């Protein structure tokens, strides 16, 4: 299983994660930052748990492309 940790306050709204991972990320039109879909806010981090391991490669594209390196994935 995979957990995604996303430090949203540092997002610069470049849209890169949405381009490579549209299943998990989408741009907010309210504040121009990316949103980790269905995630929960915990101590300034947005967290999405229990993602199937088949998404490992798909999600690692987002962690690599993010210019400010605020998307982390943990594989359990």
């Amino acid at each position, binding site marked *: 299983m995979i957990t995604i940790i996303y430090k949203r306050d540092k997002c*610069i*709204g*470049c849209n890169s994660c949405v381009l490579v991972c549209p299943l998990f990320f989408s741009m907010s*039109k309210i504040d*121009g*930052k990316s949103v980790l879909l269905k995630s929960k806010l915990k101590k300034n981090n947005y967290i999405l748990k229990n993602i199937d391991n088949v998404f490992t490669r798909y999600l690692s594209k987002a962690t690599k492309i*993010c*210019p*400010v390196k605020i998307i982390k994935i943990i594989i359990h």
Partner: protein
Amino acid sequence: MKKIELLSPINNYESLYAAIESGANSIYFGVEQLNMRAVNSNLKIKDIRKISNICKKKKIKKYLTLNTIIYDHDILLVKRILKTCKKYDIDGIIAMDNFVINYSNKLNLPIHISTQLNITNIESLKFYSKYSDVIVLSRELNLNQIKNICSLIKKNNIKGFSKKKIKIEIFCHGSLCMAVSGKCYLSLHTYNSSANRGACKQNCRREYLVKDYKSNLSYKISNEYIMSSKDLCTINFLDKIIDTGINILKIEGRGKSPEYVSVITKCYKEAIESIVNKSYTQEKINDWIYKLSCVYNRGFWSGYYLGQRIGEWTQNSGSLSLKKKIYIGKVIKFYNKIKVMIMLIQSYNLEIFDNIYIIGNKIGVKETKVKKIINKKKKEVSEVKKGEICSIKVEFKVYTNNKIYKIINN
């Protein structure tokens, strides 16, 4: 002689107070992610009101920079920022995107055309004058070209959006870009980190090798950081700059520290005043250059203003500043009547005759020399170490939790 406006960069409240105390006539700042220092931007929309109120009290102008590339998903945020600026009387928006310019016009917010738009001739200036009140000229122009543009504005009586004569702003100090005023894609291509969205990774500031694949030999490029331009410094020919007819002198450095803002603003303010009252001497220039080189710099050159051949590259990575600051502790109490502050040393030590900076909210940056240290047992000592509490006398007001730094030679 007409009044020259000195415009200082701020990125937090410390540098705001530093700019005000040092004599800036105006300040500029960015909020949220839509400015060219998005990565180290500390200010949010809610800070617009607070900054505006502080500036109003201190009677200085305040401008907001909103000069990144704007995408569709940014539109609502841009509108929200601009409406907030209108509500709290921000004096101008530094912009490059046509939507930002257009929407500010609708709200009747004055526009400064950002250097990102590279205005290099009178005809494009005329075009943008319909939408703006201040034009920041391209940093790549020389003084003759600037003078020519300024005299043509006068001759043709070119007016801005608010029907007042259009003003010219140029950079007088700070980092320069190896690309034409920020239009660079090195960072984007190598790290997907766009300089034009305020996330420049500064590839240009590094040292590179040239590799010959056939022989597998690498060559160091003449010991120079061939893409890293030295910093712009104009204090030694500021009279010529003012003589061109410009209205606003802008200091670069929203990514820099409060003491940088303080020192640079103070020196340029003094220089402008000396030029006005005709006491601009070589001796003063030498003194200012020494002071300027004590804070962050990559070595100085005159930029493109004197029409020199392109490129003066720095010889080092990072700063060449003569002095640096190290954190030693914080203020824990201040007795205003006797002007004595109690401080806690949290790292290194404090010695007698040390020069220190006290940096913080409300005071900006203050520099002082420690003449007497009293320790916890009320004895006069020559040194206090980490973990100890001591009291020293200062000439100005400080506040609890202001940070104390020791200034040492670099």
